């Protein structure tokens, strides 16, 4: 099980407090679709997501970005039990959505970049290291129900 020190917990909470889910969620998901275009295959019902400007103006992308970041909030609130918190989501992405688990890492990278753009120097090296540790635990948990 991943262990977080008290300092790491407060770092994660402090960064998360600066994150506006309604802003960073859509930004991060849009980045994934633009930077890693093969991910478009998972969003067949979203309409036009085939150019950057289409992605940025797509309401379903925006809505889904918020859903994804709201789910990350669960991990922030349950830092000691991320695996259990995400078991259902992992199973869902594996059995229903058939998402290649490599994509969780790509989304994690885009979330970090979206946060870097927003909070800038607040994401200093030590904070980035802690945040990455947290997201690695999240990505692991999302992988956990895959066989």
């Amino acid at each position, binding site marked *: 099980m991943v262990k977080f020190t008290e300092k790491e917990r407060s770092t994660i909470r402090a960064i998360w407090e600066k994150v506006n889910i309604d802003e960073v969620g859509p930004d991060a998901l849009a980045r994934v*679709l*633009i*930077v890693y275009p093969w991910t478009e295959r998972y969003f067949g019902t979203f309409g036009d997501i085939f150019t950057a400007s289409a992605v940025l103006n797509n309401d379903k992308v925006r809505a889904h970005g918020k859903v994804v970041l709201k789910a990350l909030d669960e991990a922030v609130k349950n830092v000691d039990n991320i695996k259990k918190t995400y078991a259902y989501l992992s199973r869902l992405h594996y059995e229903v959505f058939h998402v290649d688990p490599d994509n969780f890492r790509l989304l994690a990278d885009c979330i*970090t*970049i979206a946060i*870097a*753009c927003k909070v*800038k120097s607040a994401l200093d*090296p030590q904070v*980035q290291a802690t945040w990455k540790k947290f997201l690695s635990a999240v990505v692991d948990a999302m992988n956990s129900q895959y066989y």
Partner: protein
Amino acid sequence: MVEWSDFERATIQDIFGKMDYDDVGPAALSRCLVVYPWTQRYFGGFGNLYNAAAIASNPMVAAHGKVVLRGLDRAVRNMDDIKGTYAELSVLHSEKLHVDPDNFKLLADCLTIVVAARMGKDFTGEVQAAFQKFLAVVVSSLGRQYH
């Protein structure tokens, strides 16, 4: 050979043209040493790297950060032959410095975060895609002469 769109060329020239290499180089390298601490093994002669504060104020880290960014500048100025431009550097890193080529990606990721934090909302998804493509070519070229 790598093909660059007009947007990608212009984006890369714009980002690096406006960049302060003496600021971004040290920031990226020190971030790498903090976020991926095993990379410290390559800098045994650099003195005190015991914590983030020591790394941030280490003059050898700062100096070397500038060297790395100036090396990257050569790829910026030779985008149509990054492979050829970096052939010697690749041999150097492989045969003399014995750097695990996975580490090039880690440094590239840290550079991306530094640039994202400096550019804020100007680091859009499209800009991110162009920047990451450029760094992927750089990383691949640096890894080419390894056997």
